[in-house]
């Protein structure tokens, strides 16, 4: 299963709900304001560093760029993809769940 999260982990609990309900090995795609969750050195970085052991975590490159977040600052093991990579993830997983 593919989970998409689009809200900032600092302001909303969407990511937390996603992590509670996602199954081991599921893919999580961080888009829009959720890309802040993928960055090193923040107050939520530890949560995400832990999450990537249980899940495959992806982050939308164009959304990082728009927000001025360097791709180098992304937590190791989180994969930066583009819209085409997002499409591939949707194709690879039978079901998508958007944590709106």
């Amino acid at each position, binding site marked *: 299963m593919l989970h998409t999260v689009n809200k900032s982990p600092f302001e909303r609990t969407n990511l937390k709900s996603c992590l509670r309900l996602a199954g081991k090995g599921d893919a999580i795609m961080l888009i829009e304001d959720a890309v802040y969750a993928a960055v090193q050195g923040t107050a939520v970085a530890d949560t995400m560093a832990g999450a990537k052991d249980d899940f495959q975590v992806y982050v939308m490159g164009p959304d990082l760029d728009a927000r001025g977040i360097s791709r180098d600052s992304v937590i190791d093991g989180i994969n930066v993809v583009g819209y085409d990579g997002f499409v591939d993830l949707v194709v690879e997983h039978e079901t998508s769940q*958007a944590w709106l």
Partner: protein
Amino acid sequence: MKIGILVNEGPFNHQASDSAYQFTKAAIEKGHQVLRVFFYYDGVNNANKLAEPQSDDRNVSKRWTELAKQHRIDLVVCIAAALRRGIKEDILADGFRISGLGQLIEIGIAADRTVVFGD
């Protein structure tokens, strides 16, 4: 692969319609078939043809119209949500049509994948 899209938010106020557009474009470029894009909740506001964004910004509604024309994508606005918000034939942008919510359930049944974009 057959893909269907649900857009839950209107233009500009949230990025949902932008993300859905970029995703749809990328899916088409990869050779997938986008069966239908369904607009629900405030998403119906994407179909307002009167929108005139500033010249240095994107025109969200027009961009959908053009993508639909180019790739024959079915853009469907939910009639109940549209009536509630005042999106009617008079102001409906090209390429969009107004229909029932059943058209969303059809996506779920007929498409291999359904992807939701919202707030």
